[in-house]
């Protein structure tokens, strides 16, 4: 009975993140007028919907013990391709959106296949994917392509009213559905358990007879799909396609996943933790913009410090009871 209430080791980072989130929101509310409102919280979701979707995909990759550096470029490629096809080629969005989603999944699966079948580090393969996607943007066009198609404009401007005079955007709904689906996928399906097993120890997973190859390829395909979906949402947000969109987003994404309590060596973590990690990054940005005098670079420094704290915390937790290797 007592065991049921004892805090489990793998829950500690997520509890810390929740506490920090509450603390930051409380501090913001005390310090700034107009901070304590539902809309500020909802704006966190609205402004970070795309980050939430990418981070969800990244969580699976990191859980499986890999890393995906190509996500930011995939978003840029998606915005660019959507913009070029919709605005310049005149294709209907109903064709373009499934097409870009499929492309993201295929590129992800391709990277996963190279990683698994040729035993090359995920880091370097996804790095090549990052160069490739960013470069392909410029092959399409070097300049920004503005999107004026009514569907995209509608998606950007639609406000879904909530009780109390608050509202959210369509992107938030998509992001929340993605997170819910990912939670189901991670914790209630065979695929999810297999991802955790591979992240824990790939060799053991193979010996247990788990489909390691298929799962790894699927994980990267899922991350590619999430990046493309985030790209679609980003297109709603920016209403343009540009090769420099989402520059450096892979770092924000990895930071969000780590702050959310996922172990970078794989095998331990929660999709919901990533959700909290994204919210925490969002709230830091909100506080810095409310402060006014603080400049935007403080965001990077604060996120760097948080990253350090969480990595040290993880290290501390995993070092306990386990002999330190050289």
């Amino acid at each position: 009975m007592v065991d049921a209430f004892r805090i489990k080791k793998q829950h500690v980072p997520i509890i810390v993140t929740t506490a920090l989130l509450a603390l930051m929101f409380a501090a913001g509310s005390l310090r700034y007028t107009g901070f304590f409102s539902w809309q500020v919280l909802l704006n966190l979701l609205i402004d970070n919907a795309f980050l939430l979707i990418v981070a969800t995909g990244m969580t699976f990759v990191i859980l499986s013990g890999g890393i995906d550096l190509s996500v930011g470029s995939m978003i840029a490629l998606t915005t660019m391709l959507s913009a070029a096809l919709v605005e310049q080629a005149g294709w209907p969005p109903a064709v373009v959106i499934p097409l870009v989603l499929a492309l993201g999944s295929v590129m992800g699966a391709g990277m996963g296949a190279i990683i698994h079948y040729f035993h090359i580090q995920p880091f370097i393969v996804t790095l090549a994917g990052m160069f490739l996607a960013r470069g392909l943007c410029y092959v399409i066009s070097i300049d920004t392509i503005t999107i004026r198609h009514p569907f995209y404009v509608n998606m950007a401007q639609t406000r879904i009213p909530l009780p109390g005079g608050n509202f959210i955007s369509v992107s938030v709904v998509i992001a929340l559905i993605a997170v819910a689906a990912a939670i189901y996928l991670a914790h209630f399906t065979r695929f999810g358990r297999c991802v955790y097993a591979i992240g824990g120890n790939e060799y053991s997973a193979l010996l247990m007879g788990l489909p390691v190859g298929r799962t790894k390829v699927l994980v990267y395909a899922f991350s590619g799909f999430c990046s493309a979906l985030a790209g679609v949402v980003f297109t709603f947000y920016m209403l343009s396609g540009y090769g420099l969109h989402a520059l450096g987003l892979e770092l924000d994404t990895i930071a969000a996943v780590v702050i959310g309590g996922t172990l970078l060596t794989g095998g331990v973590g929660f999709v919901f933790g990533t959700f909290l990690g994204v919210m925490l990054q969002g709230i830091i940005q909100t506080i810095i913009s409310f402060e006014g005098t603080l400049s935007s670079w403080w965001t990077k420094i604060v996120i760097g410090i948080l990253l350090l704290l969480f990595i040290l915390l993880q290290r501390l937790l995993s070092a306990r009871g386990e002999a330190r290797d050289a």
Partner: protein
Amino acid sequence: MERIRRHHLFWPLMVLAALLLFNLLYDPDFFRIQMRDGALYGSLIDILFFGSPLALVAIGMTLVIATRGIDLSVGSVVAISGAIACLTISKGADQNDPSLVLAAVGLALAASALLGLWNGFLVTRAGIQPIVATLILMVAGRGIAQLITSGQIITVISPNYEIIGGGALLALPVSVYIVALVFLLAVFLTRKTALGLFIESVGCNPTASRLAGIRSDTVRLFAYLFCGLCAGMAGLILSSNVSSADCNNAGLWYELDAILAVVIGGTSLNGGRFFLTGTLLGVLIIQTLTTTIYMTGVPPEITLVVKAVVVLAVCLVQSESFRRKLVHSLATARSQPVEREVTPRG
């Protein structure tokens, strides 16, 4: 012939030769070198000149990768080092004062060394994986650089400072000499002293080398310190070349280019085996590629696509299982699975 073909520098040299040959056919002027105002000018000199910051970073990165580590923070260190140097000089009464410039250079290098030590400390003492440990500084570094310059682009007017990145000595750019010095120092340290052996053994197996009596922590700490210093020097060259510190763009993508150069040079990302000459060749290949793309009039952004193809090709060639599969499918007409995985059905 077989021995030459098997030499680790064979393929990088072939690629470089092919690139140069393409340039020769495309535009014979590529190889023309002119003498103007006591300095040499020409595309080949440009390649050496523009490649020098990357070469410095890549030399440092080689040692880190040899210890089975990686340093993602070099781009940020480049930005910080340039920011510190330019800030120090801009604060002085006489920006051209040689002692002020020396102090600025010293401060910037000290800061870079400190940042390298910080990375090494996280990796060795805190026991964090290198990719994660250096990610922290990669994220926070650009913020720190902007904090130093208050988000502005600091411009300095200091001919003495400009010498580092823009001056010429005996007809060659000063930065090329800096690279040569650092390269010779690195080669001397790793090939003429036991340090190289230590680095390789730590990269092969940290635990075994610790048990064999090698201070693996100290060796790794040194590698990160050296890498930080190299990145700091690259930052000085870059900022001195344009006489300003631009925290957003200085050293952007340098970590990736440096890793690419190291990998092209034949150093395995798994550590344990490293080739400094190969790295230098890798840098020359990347820089020649960039110059070639500029010359042919293709939009320079396409370089990224080419780089992606090069990274993948090099990695695939290095991959044991890819070579085995390739040889296998070439040897036998019918394809057979080389390794079968245990995949249960249902």
